[in-house]
């Protein structure tokens, strides 16, 4: 559905040196995926979306969306919905005019009833005559969401930080609508900083840093990679073994983390000392842990290799 192979993108900053935004960027998104692209600030996530959408031309490499190369205004865009990171909309239009304009560019001529219904869904109905330049950040974001759901032919949705500035209720509603769309076969390409959100809806993720993808995998397998620790809670005792990483200590209990390979050693220790074990559970790894360890690991590796070279 979406494929990027060995993509390099660089551009000139005014009066500054050339900046490489993407280097050896590789990505594959299969039909029906809810794909999350993660990365720290400046990793090149938005540049990646612009390149996939054909708004930026790569210096090298190939980009294919639905088997074709996208370019500005391509007819393929009738199957694509795009939500930009910033509210780069036609600010001189009112909410209703903007929705109508974007719908007409897709080739639709929605009735005022249909527009009213969509605006009501996102709580924008009473602001339909308000100019976008006078709308709040959240309202502009909602206008962006309305225009992506206007495209009934959409087979792919590119969403750059979709829940930015949204209230919690609208976030939940949007998430449900997104999952509903995905059930109907729409592929979703999501770029987000909110890892819990990605964890909730994505089935595949890629983590990128400094312009290239470090890891790309199914979310489940990515989370299971780091499931090698157990959370334990036991009766306080002396001489706690060094392999127990104590996280909390009170008069009544000690909480800690143990690597799975040392778990039986720990049981032996408890048996010998006749110490009571209260809780022992596999530690649930969150995407945040995975993301932090991978990104930190990569930056440390780069730092080490730089120090080694120098």
């Amino acid at each position, binding site marked *: 559905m979406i494929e990027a192979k060995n993509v390099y993108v660089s*551009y000139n900053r005014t009066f500054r040196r050339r900046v490489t935004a993407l280097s050896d960027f590789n990505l594959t998104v299969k039909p029906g995926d809810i794909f999350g692209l993660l990365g720290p600030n400046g990793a090149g996530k*938005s540049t990646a979306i*612009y390149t996939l*959408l054909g*708004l*930026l031309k790569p210096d090298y490499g190939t980009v294919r969306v639905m088997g074709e190369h996208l370019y*500005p*205004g*391509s*007819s*393929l*865009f*009738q199957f*694509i919905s*795009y939500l*930009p990171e*910033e509210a*780069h*909309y*036609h*600010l*001189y*239009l009112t909410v209703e*005019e903007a929705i*109508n*304009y*974007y719908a*007409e*560019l*897709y*080739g639709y*001529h929605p009735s005022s009833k249909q527009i009213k219904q969509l605006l009501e869904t996102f709580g924008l109905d009473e602001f339909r005559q308000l*100019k976008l330049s006078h709308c709040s950040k959240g309202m502009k974001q909602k206008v962006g969401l309305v*225009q992506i759901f206007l495209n009934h032919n959409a087979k792919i949705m590119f969403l750059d930080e979709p829940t930015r500035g949204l209230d919690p209720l609208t976030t939940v509603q949007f998430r449900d609508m997104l999952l509903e769309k995905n059930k109907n076969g729409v592929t979703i390409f999501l770029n987000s900083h909110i890892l819990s959100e990605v964890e909730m809806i994505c089935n595949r993720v890629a983590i990128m840093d400094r312009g290239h993808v470090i890891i790309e995998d199914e979310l489940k397998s990515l989370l299971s990679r780091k499931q090698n620790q157990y959370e334990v809670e036991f009766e306080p005792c002396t001489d706690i073994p060094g392999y127990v990483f104590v996280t909390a200590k009170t008069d009544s209990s000690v909480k800690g983390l143990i690597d799975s390979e040392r778990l039986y050693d720990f049981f032996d220790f408890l048996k010998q000392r006749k110490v009571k074990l209260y809780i022992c559970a596999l530690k649930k790894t969150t995407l945040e842990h995975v993301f932090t360890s991978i990104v930190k690991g990569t930056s440390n590796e780069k730092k080490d290799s730089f120090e080694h070279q120098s």
Partner: protein
Amino acid sequence: MKRKILSNIKADLIFFSRNGWLIGIVAVLVLHALLSFIFGGLIPLYHANRFENIQNIVGSINNYGFIIVVALGIVTIFSHSTQRCLKMVFTKPCLPDVWIFSLFLSIAIVAILIFFLSFLTGSLLFVIWKVPYQPGLIFVCIKECCEAMIMSFFLLLLSLIVHPLIAVFLITVLNESSLYYICLSVRAALESTSTFSFWHAFWLNISKSVSEILYRTVPIINPYAEKFNEVVKSWLVLSEDWAHLTVYVLYTMVASWLMAIFSTEALKKKRLI
């Protein structure tokens, strides 16, 4: 395609009516017109020749119209580049060609409306003041409309290539009259003496070639200048003047079409993110 062009034209016309810069320009021009009318126009209006009054009023409206029409293209490009909203257009099935064509059409519509208004005002004054109608009125309005459109489209094209502010400075050099005088000056310098050093002569020859190429490349804003100036002064139109005007209108259409093509290419090369 037709629907998309209409949607873009609608959005452009809304933009023209709401943009702060354009509203500001119109407000300044209206204020200028009012002040000119109150302090400089009232007395001659009652005493001078009525025909001359009509010429002055239509001339003023045309001048104001020219400034407004020229501003439309550059302000649109400047505003859309600053707001970075073009990516919302081009991530939909709407080609840059369609957007540029719609913008050119929108500017043409406004230009035609403004100069038609000028024509209507003149015609009304002919009737009110019972002055014999002069066909020069329609001639002048058409000529000024073409001039304004060519200038606006050329500035629009330049503002897609360089920053709009630089485009405004460039247009002061890259226009037919400036380039004509530059060509004449360089030619005169070359012919004045033959005792140049090699490098002096080399640079003068380069300057001559460049200025002549540019002179032939830039769109002509005021063709048949001498003949047209006569008509503008007297509002008497001979049949050959109509023929020249027809050629100028055709030239405007061809030049606009070419500038639309170049603008599209410039837009495609522009960073849209």
